[in-house]
């Protein structure tokens, strides 16, 4: 039997990315591109109201029709991509920015710090995530920034757990031992040697969390707790479409499709990256789900 070398940062380049992963990546890139384009150009001003022309079916001027204020749906979907992505990206960044150092600290120091980090994780998992997010936004008030906080908080334990798990197995490796013998401090080793080597696992988890964050932002905004007008996000659009469900289901279907396509793309990309970077991560995905 051929022995498979344990995958680490050194062997990352080895395997090819699956076709589905390329497709997923392409979709994600397209959405990102759309969001970026919306910064400089949209077919119409997404905030421009034309009440006389409300709930119009798709026409040449409005390829996807208009909403209940007569605003262009296509333009709003484009801008919505921007807000959905920005909120999710910052939330995941927040989770990783706090969670990864915590996880590294826990793995480097063991003892009570490790224990404290893990108990914090347990407590965070004892509450249904959505419930806590609802409470947080009730206290702080609805809005994109607070949605970021609510989603970000739930990413902290996920990243802490992944970082700790991946880092723990590295501390016993010879090159780490060598660095320790050379008198490097634990913090320095964590930053210089551990972090680059667990980056693969973190990128994979980040992709998955990003997809989950988009779903979470949509859920919060749908409940009216996320982005607020005049901001547009896909969840916000779904929230506004709710009362027009029977009159104009298009308004509810289009933003939902945008969410599905984006999340699908990110998940396919995430799965592909995981297969390439770290096949052992397979069962962890649902773990971080909400």
């Amino acid at each position, binding site marked *: 039997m051929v022995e498979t070398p344990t995958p680490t940062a050194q062997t990352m380049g080895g395997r090819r990315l699956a076709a589905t992963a390329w497709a997923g990546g392409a979709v994600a890139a397209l959405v990102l591109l759309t969001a970026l384009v919306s910064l400089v150009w949209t077919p119409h001003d997404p905030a421009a109201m034309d009440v006389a022309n409300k709930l119009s079916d798709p026409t040449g001027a409005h390829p996807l029709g208009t909403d209940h204020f007569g605003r262009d749906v296509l333009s709003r979907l484009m801008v919505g991509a921007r807000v959905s992505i920005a909120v999710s990206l910052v939330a995941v960044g927040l989770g990783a920015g706090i969670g990864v150092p915590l996880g590294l600290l826990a793995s480097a120091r063991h003892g009570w710090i490790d224990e404290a980090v893990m108990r914090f994780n347990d407590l965070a998992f*004892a509450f249904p995530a959505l419930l806590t997010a609802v409470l947080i936004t009730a206290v702080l008030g609805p809005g994109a920034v607070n949605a970021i906080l609510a989603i970000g908080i739930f990413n902290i334990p996920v990243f802490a757990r992944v970082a700790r798990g991946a880092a723990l197995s590295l501390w016993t490796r010879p090159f780490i031992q060598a660095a320790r013998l050379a008198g490097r401090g634990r913090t320095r080793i964590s930053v210089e040697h551990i972090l680059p080597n667990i980056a693969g696992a973190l990128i994979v988890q980040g992709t998955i969390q990003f997809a989950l964050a988009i779903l979470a932002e949509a859920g919060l905004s749908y409940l009216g707790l996320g982005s607020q007008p005049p901001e547009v996000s896909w969840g916000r659009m779904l929230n506004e479409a709710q009362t027009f469900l029977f009159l104009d*289901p298009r308004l509810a279907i289009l933003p939902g499709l945008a969410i*599905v396509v984006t999340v699908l793309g990110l998940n396919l990309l995430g799965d592909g990256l995981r297969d390439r970077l770290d096949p052992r991560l397979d*069962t962890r995905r649902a773990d971080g789900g909400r």
Partner: protein
Amino acid sequence: MAWFIAKRAVALALTLVAASLVVFGVLEVLPGDPALLILGVNAREDTLAALRESMGLDQPAHWRYLAWIGGLLTGQLADSLTYDVPVTELLVPRIAVSLPLALMALTLTVALALPLGVLAAARRGRAADGAIMGASQLGIAVPNFWLGILLILLFAVTLRWLPSGGFPGWEAGVGPALAALIMPAVALALPQAAILARVTRSSVLEVLGEDYMRTARAKGLSQGEALWHHGLRNALIPVVTIMGLQFSFLLAGTIIIENVFNLPGIGRLIFQAIGQRDIVVVRDLVVLLAAMVGVVNVLVDLSYAVLDPRLRRGHLRGAHG
């Protein structure tokens, strides 16, 4: 075993105490005065003070916390600030909606995910596997509330097979009640089933490579028999872990799904109570939900012991040493 349960019960109790402190603290800083909400814009200052006193809101925080915990422990829940009835009375009919809903969703999740996951693993790399995994990718990407909207559009509005929302009550008969719950349950279940099917598949794949599966085949068992008699129980261990986590997602999911389907359950009650600043209802519900999640986690741990005799002995050893 008894020792193990006792140990878990203590851990659960500690978690709940921590949870209750967090919730109480959060509700303390929640902006909005329940008395003002009840009495409205024409209320006078002295009227508000009288109402606050009658609701016990004028007491210091630590006293109110202890009174609350004492009430929880003795089963004497306080009166809801808005409904003015004991929270217990509010909860029972709500649980009669939410619990069946969560259980239906969980049953659906398992009933879909296990066979599909096993099938995908058994047909690894073939068309069935590809189809199931493709569909599960799609399922994971669909927000459950949007799925709920689509179901309403399709089955309630276009086909008119099912009610679009609301709950007739169990006294209207099991049929109408279940008809009202089936769409919400499906909306909750499909995305979770997609996740669980993937977990099942990878777990079964792992088990299929185990030596004992070869032993079973060497005895003359067919592939299917070996999987059924030897593989499943081993494969179930990670699956049960995820199921435990999913139960908490399903509970939380009711907050959003009950809003979509206009169901008078716990999820909508808690959402409404937050809006109305009915902190009595909110704190009891949050602790209740945390307790349910905790109990399910204990059950998951217990089910490991049922599934895997090696863990049974581990716990016994823990008991004696």
